[in-house]
C-alpha cells in the first residue's frame, strides 16, 4: 500500500509536545526533513481477515464484548511500517537524538494514518454496514496476551513480517493489531474514551484538559 505524500502534521506536533508551542523555522525544517526521510524508507504492509461473531478465540473480558455488541462479524487487522522504520529511528538515536524524537513521532502518525486507510478500505468493501472503531489487545481489560492469537490468526509473521516478544510487544514497533466490528445497524458515535486507555493516569493531554482525539 502507498502512503499519502504528507503525514498529518498537526498530529505529529501534538505527539511532540502540543499545539500551543510556537513552531520555529528550525523545528519546521527538522520535521520536513524527517518526514521526507521516513516516507522514503517505509513500506507499510497490512492484512485483514473477517471473522463471524461470536469468535471465542478473541472474546476475553467485558470491554470487547461491549465493543462488539450488535455486530455479527468483525474484521481483524494487522499493519506495520516495517523493519526499516525502527532501524531509521535506532540510527538517529545514535547520531542525532532530537531527530530521533521527531522521527518517532512521525512514525506513530504514519502507522495511524495507515490504519485509517485500512478502515476506509474495510468500509468500502462492506457497503451498507457500519464499522466500530478499532479495538486492540491492551485496551481496557482486553488482555495484551491476545497479541499472540491475533498474530497467529492473521498469519502476521509470514504475511507482513510482524511478530512479538515475550512481553507481547509488537516487533517492528510501529505496528498495530486490532479488531473492528461490522454491524447492520448504525453504531452510536462515541470517542474511544480515556477509560480504556493504559495512559489515562499519565497522559499529557488529560493533564492539560485536552483529549488525544481517539
Amino acid at each position, binding site marked *: 500500500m502507498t502512503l499519502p505524500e504528507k503525514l498529518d502534521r498537526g498530529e505529529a506536533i501534538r505527539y*511532540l*509536545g*502540543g499545539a*500551543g*508551542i*510556537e513552531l*520555529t523555522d*528550525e*523545528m519546521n525544517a*527538522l520535521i520536513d526533513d524527517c518526514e521526507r526521510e521516513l516516507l522514503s524508507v517505509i*513500506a507499510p504492509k497490512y492484512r485483514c481477515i473477517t471473522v463471524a461473531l461470536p469468535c471465542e478465540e478473541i472474546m476475553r473480558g467485558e470491554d470487547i464484548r461491549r465493543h462488539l455488541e450488535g455486530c455479527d462479524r468483525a474484521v481483524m487487522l494487522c499493519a506495520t511500517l*516495517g*523493519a*526499516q522504520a*525502527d*532501524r531509521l*529511528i*535506532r*540510527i538517529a*538515536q*545514535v*547520531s542525532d*537524538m*532530537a*531527530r*530521533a*524524537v*521527531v522521527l*518517532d513521532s512521525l512514525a506513530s502518525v504514519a502507522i495511524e494514518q495507515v490504519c485509517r486507510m485500512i478502515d476506509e478500505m474495510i468500509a468500502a468493501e462492506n457497503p451498507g454496514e457500519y464499522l466500530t472503531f478499532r479495538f486492540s489487545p*491492551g485496551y481496557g481489560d482486553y488482555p*495484551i496476551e491476545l497479541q499472540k492469537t491475533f498474530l497467529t490468526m492473521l498469519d502476521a*509473521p*509470514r504475511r*507482513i*513480517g510482524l*511478530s*512479538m*516478544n*515475550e*512481553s*507481547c*510487544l509488537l*516487533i*517492528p*514497533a510501529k505496528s498495530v493489531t486490532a479488531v473492528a466490528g461490522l454491524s447492520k445497524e448504525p453504531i452510536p458515535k462515541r470517542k474511544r474514551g480515556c477509560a480504556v486507555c*493504559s*495512559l489515562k*493516569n*499519565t497522559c499529557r493531554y488529560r493533564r*492539560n484538559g485536552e483529549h488525544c482525539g481517539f
Partner: protein
Amino acid sequence: MDFEKLTGTNGFVLLDGAMGTLIQKSGAEYRHSPETLNITEPDLIASFHRAYIEAGSQIIYANTFGANAYKLADSGFSVEEIIRAGVRNAKSAAEGRALVALDVGPIGMLLEPAGSLRFDEAYDYFKQQIIAGQDADLIVLETMTDLYELKAAVLAAKENCDKPILATMTFERDGRTFTGVSPAAAALTLSGLGVDALGVNCSLGPDELEGVVAELTRFTDLPLIVKANAGLPDPNSNEYNISPKRFAECVSELLKYGVRYVGGCCGTTPEYISELKAMLADRSYVPVPKEAGACVCSASTVVEIDRPRIIGERINPTGKKAFQQALVNDDLDYILTQALSQVEGGAEILDVNVGHPEIDEARMMVRALTSIQSVCDAPLQIDSTKPAVLEAGLRRYNGKPIVNSVNGEEKSLASVLPLVKKYGAAVVGLTLDENGIPKTAEGRFAIAKRIVERAEALGIDRREVFIDCLTLTVSAEQDACRETLRALHRVKTELGCRTCLGVSNISFGLPNRELVNSTFLTMALEEGLDLPIMNPNLPAMTGAVRAYRVLAGFDKNSLDFIAAYNDTKPSAPKAEKTVDLTSAVYRGLKNEGAAVTEQLLQSRDAMEIVNELLIPALDKVGEDFEKGRIFLPQLIQSANAAQECFEVIKRHLNASGKGEVSKGKIILATVKGDIHDIGKNIVKVLLDNYGYTVVDLGKDVDPQLIVDTAVSRGITVIGLSALMTTTLKSMEDTISLIRRTPELQNPDGTSKCVVFVGGAVLTREYAMKIGADYYCRDAKESVDAAKRVFG
C-alpha cells in the same frame, strides 16, 4: 537411497508441494497447530506424503515446520514427540522411495537487535529440533526472513548432525526479505557456512521470482532451490491463481540460473509436482558458476572487491585515550558514533578492534559487532590477535565478514584458518612469521604464498585471502616503502590474491603526514592495492581512492565521484557571528556555541562561564520545556549545544592542568522484556550533557546484570525505564532485587542505592509503591533527580 545418489539422469531433484494446503483442503481439525496432526492423525499425514511421492517427489518434508519449543509451548506435546512422529509418518510413507527431510521453519520470535531473542537462545531452539529429528535423512531450513536466525539454524544443524542442509529464505516483491536481507547477502553467507544448496521458498509465485533467483546465482557456486507459492491467494476464497501447468512453465524459465531442486510452497498440490516432473523430463541440470569475485557482506549490503574499497580503521583503541576509557566503561556509543561517521566519510567496510588489557575482549567484540550491525549496513572486519575473540565474533556476525588476521606463523595458520573456513569469512594474511617481517619483497611474497597454499588446502578461495604486505615507517627505513610496493605488486599479479594495506604507518615521525599518506596510498593503488585500511574522515585520503577509481576506469562515467563531490545539498548556514552564548544554547546551535565559548575563554574564567552563562541558559531551556513553551527535540538540541560548550571548556581546563571530574555515575537500563528504549536514550543524552557519567546497559536488561554492574562498578544511582503496563512488573522485580542484594546494602540493612524510574504508563503512586526513590515524569525531571542526588 542417499543424498548423493538422489539425482536422476537429468540431474534435478524434485521436492514436494505444500503440506498446509492439503491439510486445509482435507478439512482435518487440529487443536493447536497443524504439527499436532502428526500424533492425532498419522495416517492422514502419511497419505499426503504418499501423494507427493506418487507424483514424483524425491525429497519430502516432514510435517515439522513449526515444531519448536516456542510455538508448541501450550500444545500439550513436546518438540521430541511431534518431530519423531512427523519423521516417522514421512518415513512410513516413503518406504525408501524418497528421502525424508526434517523441516525447520522460523522460531516465531525475532532475534536481536530488532527483536529480543538472543542468538544463543535461537541456536538452542534449533538444536533441540535437529536432535529430535535425528532419524531424518537431511535438514531443510525454510521460509526464513532473518539471515541471523538462519545462521543460528545452520550452525545448530552443522554442529549437531552431519546431514545435508538445504536452506531457503522468503523474499518479498521488493527483492528483499521482511528484515531487509538481500539475495546476494543470503547467497554469500549461506555458501560460506557450508550448506549444500540454497534458494527461495514461499514468497511469491514462480512468475515473480526471476530477479531473486538471478541474483542468488551470481553470488554462489551451489545449486539453487526454488519452492514457490502457486501465485497469490485470493483474499476471499484463499485460492491461489497459478495453475499447475503454468507453474511448471514459470519454473522452467528459472532453471537456467542453476536451479536444481524444485518443488512448491503455499497453494501447491501433488498436481503441481506432477507437472514439474513432466516439465523436467526433457531438461537437464546445468550448474552455473558464481559470477561475482571476492565479496564480503552484512545482511543487507554486499561489497564486491572488484575495485579499491576503503576499510575504515578508526574503531581501534590503540593510542586513543577516550576510546580506551569508553571500552572500560562499557560505553558502546563511542564505537557507534565512530562507525556512522566513517561510513559518512566514505568507508565501505569497517575494521573493528576492541583489544584492551582491562576488558573481556571476546565479550566486547560480540557487543561491538552486534551493536554496529544494528545501526550500520557496512560489512565488518573482525580484528584481534586472539583466535578465541575471532571465533566469538565470527559466530555472532550477521553476514560474511573479514578476519583480521592470520600470518605465516604455524600457530596462527593452524588456529585461524579453520575458523575462517568454518564460518565462511574472508581473511587478511599478514606477510610476517616467527622470524618477523622479511626485509625484502621476496621474503614477504614467500610468506604470502605459504598462507595462500594453506588456505586453499582447507578449501578457502584464494581470492578471499587479502594479503597485507605491511607498511613500515619511511622515516625509519626509507627503502622499505619500495619493498612493500614490490611485494604487493607480485602478490597481486602472481598469486591472484586481493591485497590490503594499513596506510597510515608510513608517515610516523614526519610533518604533514596526510600528504605523505595520500601520496603513498596513490602509489600503492597503482601497484594493485584493493583494500586500503585508513582513516576515511580525511578528505585527501578518501579523495585519492575516489579519484583513482575514476582514473583507473573502475568508476564508470565517474558516477560515484560526481555523487560524492557534486554536492547538491544546501550548504550549512554560516555560523552567526553575533550570537551570544545564551542564545546559542537556547537555539541549539552547536558550532556557534563552541566558537563563542572559545572567544569567551580568552577573557573570562572557565568556571565563571559555566556558572554564569551555561548553567543559567540550560536552566532557562529546562524551565521553558516544563512550562510547555518548547518541544522536546529543542530541549535535546539545546543540551547538545551546551555539551559542545562544556567540551571546549573541558579541553581548556585539561590544557591548563586543572583536571575535571564527572559529576557522578549513573546506571541506566530499560527493564527486562521491554524493548522501547527511546525514552531511556533521551534521558541518557541529557544526563551526559549535564556532566554525569552514564553507564547504559541498553534495553531488555536482566535485573541481575543491573545489580552485578552496580556492585562491580560501585555505582549506587540507577535509572530504570519501562514503557508498557506489561513490563512494569519487571521494573518492580528489578528494584526488589536491588534492595535485596547484600552488597548494595548499608551495615544497618538499608539500601545504598538511589533508584529513579520513568516511563509512559508509570505514575508517581506506582513508582513509590514499587520502591523507587524518584519518579521522573520526563527527561528533564531525570536531570532534576540527578541534581538532587549528587547535589
